[in-house]
């Protein structure tokens, strides 16, 4: 059972399964894999938000994909009816593959909380710089999101309406303060770390 494996084992299984799902050609293998994954997902009690994400990613593009595949089938067979069958027969394994890759990813995330993953990475003795990089990224993601909201609010107070936030002038009004904020933060944090000797081989 995947979720009883240690984290390293889960990581290996996940990566291996993803690789296999990406390259396997036989449709019946894909359908079989989908069945197994669905059973495991049910046992794992995949949270509702993950199930919604899975549905959104897999089902939402289906109409467009169906049109493309049917058009391709028309081109291959010469008729619409045969083309539709041709297309949908090929859409099924394609969609299944996408769905399986997504489901495997979600199951891995569900079974492996981030702190566990970080602990494994620490034990793997990855280079200092990479450890610092990953920890900074995870540590500052929430605060950077707050910064973005704060700058958006500040510029809205200067009359920049929502619908203009993605125009060139709007993007400049957001990008410049945010970029400079990261510059300043990097300066301050690096200083704080290096003064405390983090430039040595110690890891946090």
């Amino acid at each position, binding site marked *: 059972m995947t979720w009883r494996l240690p984290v390293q084992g889960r990581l290996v299984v996940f990566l291996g399964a993803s690789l296999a799902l990406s390259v396997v050609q036989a449709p019946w293998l894909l359908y079989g894999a989908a069945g197994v994954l669905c059973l495991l997902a049910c046992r794992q009690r995949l949270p509702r938000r993950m199930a919604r994400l899975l549905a959104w990613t897999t089902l939402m593009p289906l109409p467009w994909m169906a049109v493309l595949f049917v058009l391709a089938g028309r081109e291959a067979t010469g008729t619409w009816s045969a083309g539709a069958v041709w297309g949908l027969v090929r859409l099924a394994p394609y969609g299944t593959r996408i769905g399986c890759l997504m489901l495997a990813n979600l199951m891995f995330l569900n079974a492996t909380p981030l702190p566990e993953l970080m602990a494994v990475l620490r034990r793997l003795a990855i280079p200092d710089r990479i450890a610092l990089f990953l920890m900074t990224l995870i540590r500052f993601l929430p605060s950077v999101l707050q910064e973005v909201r704060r700058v958006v609010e500040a510029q809205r107070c200067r009359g920049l309406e929502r619908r203009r936030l993605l125009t060139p002038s709007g993007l400049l009004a957001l990008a410049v303060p945010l970029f400079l904020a990261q510059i300043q*933060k990097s300066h301050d944090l690096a200083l704080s770390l290096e003064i405390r000797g983090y430039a040595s081989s110690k890891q946090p």
Partner: protein
Amino acid sequence: MSSQLSPHRPWEAGMNERLKPCSGPGYGTAQVVFLATMVALDFAFGWVAKPLVQSLGLGGVIKVEMIPAVMLMLLTRLTLDRFGVLIAYQAAWALVAMVLMPGAVLPGPLKLVPLMLQGLFLDAIFTGCRRWPTFRIFAASVVGGLAGSILVGGLRVMMGMPWARSTQAYLGLQLLGSALVHLAGAGLALVVWRRVEAHPALQWIKAGP
């Protein structure tokens, strides 16, 4: 960080080691931190931009919400002007996206392939065209963007999308959209860069160890 520096010892131990930014090859502490915060900013910007794009009905072939992402990536490269920055950036983005946006680009770890190769194209052109500072921004961005789209399209075909006129037309539209987005991102990055490049803290980070 350099493994050449010894572990921290208290002053009383009589170490004569001078306090300098971490030395040796590779990135300094500030540069590593900067790279990480820029990837974080890329995500944060996307989280704010994407719902906005959807609420304004701007979604479509031209992924407008990608323009800030392209701009931030290029600004990162301009600040840390060395080969490998964008390969690292894209790799980091892909890894974090596997956790935070598992369906982005391609599902699962598969997204690592086109993103890192895209980073390679970007880095190669940035480094190879160093003598033409403005040209390289646009060239790297557009070529990198096209390369990324071609790679994603290629992987989709490998996964079973038929190679027919309809899908070719669809992928062609994606390429066009990508080129426009990357062109716009490059233009904005250049404008921002010209405004901020004299900032003392930015110069400090550029100088590195």
